[in-house]
């Protein structure tokens, strides 16, 4: 430390002292250049100046320097090392000169740092002196002790456990006087080091509660309210119930009443008889009080702590409704909604009564109020009213700003999708609602809507016709193709129309919609789905067509001649151009019967002109599917050409039928939802060593980095591979895949094997008994397998059957935590920092900081929610049994004492209610611990109010 005056080299000259800049000068210089750089430079200059001045032997110079330093470190976040500030501050604490002393106290209370704690004990003596009566005038002395109390209650002092321990006794006389400052400081001291402070301070503090001076009793109520705040256990404060009750019934101070109510709200769950006692006074306050803060506190107390008292709850809800209806004060509206949200599910119907008022709040100008109203409304959803509520909410979407519109959509989607559409009875309604949601103005929930469209299709058989209808309306609307938020929805719609093509009314229209020019706006993954859907549609049309031919016995040749003829025309003229007019003509004539020869022809031509060019697309997904589709179309034609040359008539229909049938079987298999655990159930094939080091693959992966799509549409891998297998001639020759295979044959399975019967893996939808896989390795095989678990119907109504996997019970139980409304990361961080840390010891705080830094990859909302969960988890645990909680609390109060040493004490002194309890607390002073523990344990706590 260079702060001793014996540093001649840097000793400040008299000039420095005389021309020292004051804080005002400093502030002016900081304001001269307001740019960030200018300010930083000014701060740096000022700091170097201060570092010189603060070593001055002269107290005046030193104090000005200290003042400037305090200002800089407080408001300009100047990186002040703790020592240069702390030492002069503590030095000046002893100054006889009041302004200097005040500066020093301010500096110390603002800027002392755990790192400077080693210095804080130096201040102990001074604090002791300032707290004790002296010869100075009464006013002066009171002021000094106020300063000392200020520092004693500052966070820096709280971090130094010795300081409060040494000074606790000095507080007692001040408490006896009933000084609010001393009471507040005592609360901080007790919170900071319970083990040392509780024996000394608890009793005087409790005495203040009964003080005739309203300032003292108010401050004491506030102190106990603070000490009983949630992370702490409120049980030790039960003995204070009588004094608190007196305060509740007699006090005129709203501040005091609010604090008393808060303490009672914490005590009531611990002592059942308490609720019956306080309910009347609380109701009186509720009806009588004109102060909104007190009224709100009463409402909160009743709704959270006295839910069993019906009349009181009704009264409170009535008041809360008045709050909600307060047109002129958004704060009251917000708090009114907040209060309604505190009600448990038992009062859902009561809340339901105010649905209109809450729904009105959805249109409020205030975001907080709208959010809260939405939250409340979603809380009252059940399967009977979900249609009403969802309809009402969706009608609000159009009137809301984009952000809130999406909040509403998200909430509706979450509520309806909850636990596999538990609450949805009418799926036709829900499917059209999904489509309506997608078409709302600001919809950005495409991902979830798309997911649910597909999911409903997979799970609910009866919903499929309506699903296909809704998908059609989405697909034929060219306007939707421009909205990138809707791409997932369109992708889902395309998939649904392709998968359930047999339910479609007009496949020609569908193909047109899927191939409309604006589809070029779609991203690659969605285009691939579109093309694949076209493939499915055309395959199905062909199979119907061929089937009909077979039925009617019409000559197949005719069609094929015409197909072939058309193809030659098509290939001679430009494929892409040749059909413009034809298509229009075709479109009009074809409409009547989608399976007529003309329609098929029209569709094939349409496919060739629009998908043809995509064969050269850069993107493998699109390219591959385009190849598949065009390959199929060629195949259909080539068969005919070949046959014509061979003139083997009998062969033709059978080969065509065979082809169409094969293709149809490829697509006709039912898809089911996939369990997340499906992979684990796949047995590892023989000879596959999963633990083998795959480092060599890294090179290949980086070469062509085609990350596999995780979307649900590509789950049926086996089918995918079947597609390519069926048209080996089409793409293999030139595709990059074959190139790749050539170069890295090592990593491919034997070709002979793949072209055999589909695969050795279980078919999709085969329900695989898990017992057969009991020997499955821990490592997972990278194959998606569909596990179709037993179908469960969750409802006894006429609700359609919804396929639900066993594992989803487990999943859905996890959902709520995942669906916790996303918290503003800023406010989350704020709360973490400001609120979450008060209960923790500093050391653990630091440790958790490090942990958090380590986990920075996670989103902050995750962090905060997990912290919340931690808090929630720990709190109920502490109440699990009254005895352990008392003990825990006692441990807590004893702070550093090892638990085994005082584990029995609480029971020992708990014998006779109030006085016994206090004895337990003050055993050090009252020597009660020396009593033999003969008093039996009465678990019943006596009625403190009697």
């Amino acid at each position: 430390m260079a702060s001793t005056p014996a540093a001649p080299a840097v000793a400040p000259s008299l000039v420095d002292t005389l021309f020292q800049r004051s804080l005002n000068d400093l502030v002016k210089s900081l304001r001269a250049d307001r740019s960030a750089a200018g300010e930083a430079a000014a701060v740096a200059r000022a700091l170097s100046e201060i570092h010189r001045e603060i070593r001055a032997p002269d107290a005046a110079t030193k104090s000005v320097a200290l003042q400037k330093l305090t200002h800089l470190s407080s408001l300009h976040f100047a990186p002040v090392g703790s020592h240069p500030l702390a030492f002069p501050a503590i030095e000046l604490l002893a100054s006889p000169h009041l302004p200097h002393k005040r500066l020093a106290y301010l500096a110390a209370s603002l800027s002392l740092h755990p790192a400077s704690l080693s210095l804080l004990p130096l201040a102990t003596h001074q604090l002791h002196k300032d707290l004790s009566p002296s010869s100075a005038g009464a006013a002066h002395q009171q002021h000094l002790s106020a300063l000392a109390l200020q520092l004693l209650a500052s966070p820096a002092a709280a971090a130094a456990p010795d300081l409060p321990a040494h000074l606790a006794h000095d507080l007692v006389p001040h408490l006896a006087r009933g000084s609010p400052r001393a009471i507040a400081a005592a609360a901080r001291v007790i919170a900071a080091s319970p083990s040392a402070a509780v024996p000394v301070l608890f009793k005087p503090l409790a005495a203040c509660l009964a003080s005739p001076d309203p300032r003292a009793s108010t401050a004491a109520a506030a102190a106990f309210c603070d000490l009983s705040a949630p992370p702490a256990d409120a049980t030790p404060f039960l003995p204070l119930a009588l004094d608190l009750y007196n305060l509740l019934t007699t006090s005129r101070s709203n501040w005091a009443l609010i604090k008393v109510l808060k303490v009672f709200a914490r005590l009531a769950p611990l002592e059942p008889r308490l609720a019956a006692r306080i309910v009347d006074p609380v109701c009186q306050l509720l009806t009588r009080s004109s102060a909104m803060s007190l009224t709100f506190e009463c409402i909160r107390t009743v709704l959270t702590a006295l839910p069993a008292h019906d009349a009181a709850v009704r009264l409170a809800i009535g008041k809360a409704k008045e709050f909600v209806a307060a047109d002129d004060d958004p704060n009251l509206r917000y708090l009114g909604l907040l209060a309604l949200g505190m009600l448990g599910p038992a009062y859902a119907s009561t809340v339901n009564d105010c649905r209109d008022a809450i729904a009105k709040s959805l249109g409020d100008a205030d975001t907080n109020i709208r959010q809260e109203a939405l939250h409340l409304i979603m809380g009252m959803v059940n399967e009977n009213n979900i249609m009403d509520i969802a309809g009402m909410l969706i009608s609000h979407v159009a009137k809301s700003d984009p952000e809130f519109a999406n909040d509403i959509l998200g909430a509706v989607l979450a509520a309806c999708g909850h636990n596999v559409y538990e609450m949805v009875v009418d799926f036709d309604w829900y499917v059209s609602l999904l489509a309506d949601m997608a078409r709302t103005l600001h919809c950005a929930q495409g991902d979830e809507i798309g997911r649910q469209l597909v999911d409903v299709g997979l799970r609910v058989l009866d919903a499929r016709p309506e699903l296909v209808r809704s998908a059609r309306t989405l697909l034929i609307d060219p306007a939707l193709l421009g909205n990138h938020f809707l791409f997932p929805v369109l992708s889902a719609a395309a998939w649904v129309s392709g998968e359930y093509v047999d339910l479609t009314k007009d496949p020609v229209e569908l193909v047109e919609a899927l191939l409309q020019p604006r589809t070029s706006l779609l991203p690659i993954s969605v285009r691939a789905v579109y093309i694949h859907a076209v493939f499915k549609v055309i395959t199905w049309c062909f199979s119907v067509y061929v089937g009909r031919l077979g039925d009617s016995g019409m000559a197949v040749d005719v069609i094929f001649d015409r197909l072939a003829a058309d193809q030659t025309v098509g290939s001679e003229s430009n494929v892409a151009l040749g059909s413009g007019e034809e298509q229009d003509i075709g479109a009009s004539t074809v409409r009547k019967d989608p399976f007529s020869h003309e329609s098929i022809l029209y569709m094939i031509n349409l496919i060739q002109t629009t998908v043809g060019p995509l064969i050269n697309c850069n993107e493998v997904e699109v390219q591959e599917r385009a190849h598949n589709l065009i390959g199929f179309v060629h195949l259909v034609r080539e068969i005919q050409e070949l046959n014509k040359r061979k003139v083997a008539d009998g062969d033709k229909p059978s080969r065509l039928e065979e082809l169409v049938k094969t293709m149809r079987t490829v697509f006709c298999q039912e898809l089911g939802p996939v369990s997340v655990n499906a992979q684990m159930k796949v047995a590892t094939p023989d000879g596959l060593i999963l633990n083998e080091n795959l480092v060599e693959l890294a090179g290949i992966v980086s070469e062509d980095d085609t990350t596999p799509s995780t979307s649900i549409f590509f789950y049926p891998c086996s089918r995918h591979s079947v597609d390519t297998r069926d048209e080996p001639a089409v793409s293999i020759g030139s595709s990059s895949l074959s190139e790749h295979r050539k170069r890295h044959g090592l990593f491919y399975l034997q070709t002979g094997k793949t072209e055999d019967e589909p695969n050795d893996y279980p078919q999709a939808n085969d329900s695989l008994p898990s017992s057969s896989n009991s020997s499955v390795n821990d490592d997972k095989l990278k194959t998606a397998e569909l596990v179709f678990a037993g179908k469960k119907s969750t409802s006894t109504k006429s609700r359609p059957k919804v396929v639900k996997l066993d594992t989803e019970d487990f999943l859905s139980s996890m959902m709520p935590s995942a669906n916790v409304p996303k918290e503003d990361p800023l406010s989350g961080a704020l709360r973490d920092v400001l609120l979450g840390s008060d209960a923790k010891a500093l050391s653990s705080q630091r440790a958790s900081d490090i942990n958090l830094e380590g986990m920075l990859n996670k989103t902050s909302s995750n962090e905060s929610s997990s912290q919340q969960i931690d808090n929630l988890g720990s709190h109920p645990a502490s109440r699990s049994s009254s005895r352990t909680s008392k003990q825990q609390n006692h441990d807590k109060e004893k702070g550093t004492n090892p638990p085994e040493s005082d584990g029995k004490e609480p029971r020992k002194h708990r014998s006779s209610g109030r006085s016994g309890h206090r004895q337990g607390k003050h055993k050090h002073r009252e020597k009660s611990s020396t009593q033999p523990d003969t008093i039996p344990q009465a678990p019943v706590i006596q009625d403190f109010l009697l």
Partner: protein
Amino acid sequence: MIQAVMVISTQAKPRLLKFYNFQAPEKHQDLVRSVFQLLSASPDSVSNFVKGTKMVYKHLATLYFVFVFDSSENELAMLDLIQVFVEILDRCFRNVCELDIVFNFNKLHTILDEMILGGQVIETSSEQVVKSVEEIERLEKQSSTTSFIPKSITERFTR
């Protein structure tokens, strides 16, 4: 208890910061920044609460007055307290403006310390606080007349 009191200008400059729970000094700047972002994002004439946190604020002229607190405080009472605080400032500085606050670092803390100690509200009457602040100034003046000190220091407390 009250966790923090902040006065932040609409230019995002902190004008008064007081934390009643220990916060590492390095974090102060981030806190101010994140609070400011929350506040500046919310339009006027809406409720004075910030969802998800226990925080109330008032936007007056070029300043945001922010109180952060925990479950032991009543939201509406905190709003009232901001009102009291602003009232006191108004009485102490006669039509307070941002400049008064910029140039009276110490006095601002004196006022706040008369209202809140260690996160506990100790005085809610504006008259009482104004009286105490005047008394402190009187005491300081008394003390400073008895010794020689540079002009700059006396100036600090006679404003």
